[in-house]
Structure formats: structure tokens, C-alpha cells
């Protein structure tokens, strides 16, 4: 595939993540725009931090929710953190599940919290795959000598 084709593929792919399914929101664009010659890998670095952070948070959440007597305050702290980081990188669907999750925390509804955990894991896995694909496409373009087209 030539660079032009790769670039078109990237543009289309990125657009689909925003428009059709709402995986990403404007905050992701902001993140990409923060990249410059001094920090060419900024977006990837921040998203990688998000992956690391989220993996840990999801594990912690599973553990806390497995307890006989659920410590909802702890659950809330973790969900709040996940909500914050997903919001910061533009992972809209993850963030939205976190909002619902926090409401159930407040209600101390363990069953619904568990359901939210499953949902958030699902959304997280989806967006993680999408972002990894996106970054892979970018790498392919760069390797082929092209430049990354900037999203509006």
C-alpha cells in the first residue's frame, strides 16, 4: 500500500471512531494536537499511561467488588480515577459507563456495580484495540516516509 492509501485509511478509520460509534471525543483530537517536533510521541505516551493505569484500576475494581462486604467508597475512588483518565484522553464510551457506575456506587448497588464493571471492561477493551490499530497505522505511514494527516 502506498503512503497516500495508508493516510486515507487512517483518516477514515479515525473518523469512524468519532462519528459512527463515539469511541473517541474531541479530547482525543486535543491530545493529538499536543504532539509536536519536541514531543512526537506525546499522544502514544499518554495513551500508554492510560492503558497501564486502567489495567490496574480494573483489577482493583474486580477485587473490591468480589468482597463479601463491598467497600463502595473504594469502588468510587477507583471509578472516579478511571472516569478522569478516560475523559482526559477522549475515551468517551468508557467515561460514560464510569458515570453510570458512580451512580450505582452511590446507591450501594453491588449487582449493578458488577454489571458496570463488565461493561466498562468491554468498552475499555474495544477502545484499546481501536487506539492500538490507529497508532499502528500511524507507524506504518511514518515508516513509509509519510506524515500523519492532522484531524480537524
Amino acid at each position, binding site marked *: 500500500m502506498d503512503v497516500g492509501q495508508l493516510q486515507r485509511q487512517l483518516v477514515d478509520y479515525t473518523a469512524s471512531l468519532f462519528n459512527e460509534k463515539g469511541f473517541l471525543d474531541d479530547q482525543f483530537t486535543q491530545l493529538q494536537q499536543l504532539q509536536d517536533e519536541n514531543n512526537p510521541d506525546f499522544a502514544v505516551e499518554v495513551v500508554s499511561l492510560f492503558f497501564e493505569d486502567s489495567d490496574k484500576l480494573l483489577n482493583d475494581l474486580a477485587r473490591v467488588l468480589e468482597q463479601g462486604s463491598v467497600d463502595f467508597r473504594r469502588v468510587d475512588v477507583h471509578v472516579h480515577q478511571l*472516569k478522569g483518565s478516560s475523559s482526559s484522553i477522549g475515551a468517551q464510551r468508557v467515561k460514560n459507563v464510569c458515570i453510570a457506575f458512580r451512580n450505582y456506587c452511590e446507591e450501594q448497588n453491588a449487582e449493578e456495580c458488577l454489571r458496570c464493571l463488565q461493561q466498562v471492561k468491554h468498552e475499555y477493551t474495544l477502545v484499546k484495540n481501536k487506539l492500538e490499530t490507529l497508532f499502528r497505522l500511524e507507524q506504518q505511514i511514518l515508516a513509509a516516509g509519510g506524515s500523519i494527516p492532522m484531524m480537524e
Partner: protein
Amino acid sequence: MAVSYSSSSSKEMDYGEEPHVLAVDDSLIDRKLIEKLLKNSACKVTTAENGPRALEYLGLGDEQPDNLKSSASKINLIITDYCMPGMTGYELLKKIKESSTMKEIPVVIMSSENIPTRINKCLEEGAQEFMLKPLQQSDVKKLRCHMLKFSKPCNSRLCLGR
């Protein structure tokens, strides 16, 4: 090797050098983001992961005598997250405003939650502004008018805010 974007055009900048911002947030991701946003706005940035560390940097730590001038040089603005474990941004704001040495430094509070009572509480305690996370470049640009200028006396700034 990196060109410093700040030193070239100094139209609005009569700081002599780049303004120095202290950014406080318990989230590493958010610290990285705010740091980049601020650097893009030609600011020098120091980050702290919590209130106590921020206070230490300012020379207001528990262990430090009051008259110790920290080597932190001059901070033109402090921007802090509200929700932090241990000391909240609000509590940090209060401590700063209670300090004879640091109370003049403008403090901006950030939060992911739009809670009017929270916002009012902070503004009443002397916060310059309350900003909703996630911050964008345009938000950070607006911070310039809040920054403390050391070269000139502290007149009230013609800042129209948000």
C-alpha cells in the same frame, strides 16, 4: 537542540522570563497533559502529585520554618486539581491563602465535576478561577491574565475571564 518558543516574541510578556506555573494533580496522565498545555503556552512548569508536595515546593511544608525562602524562585500561578486524596485542592488553596509569603500567588482550581457549591466555596476562599476538566489549550491561554507579574506592581488585571 529544541528551539524555545517562548523567548522570541514577547508582545504580552513583560515577565522578563517565562512565567512559572506550579501544577498539582494526583493523576499522572493529567499532570502530563497540563504540563504540555502550559509549555505550549510558553510557561515553565513544575508539577506536584499532591498538596503536601506542592506546599513543600513552595517552602510551606510542615518541616520548614516560616521564614525559609524556598529555592522555588517565583511562582506566577498555581493550578490545582480539586479532588485529590489526603489534602484536597480546596485545602491546598486555603493553606496558600493563609501564608504571608504565598497568598498573593493566584490559584486556579480544576475539577471534572461542575458542582456550584464547590465552585463558590473555592472562589470565596480566593481562587482566581475554577476550570472544568479536561482542560484545553484555549483554557490555558486564558490563564495568562491571572498570572502574577513580579516586574510590575500588582494592579488589578483587565481580565474578562471566561
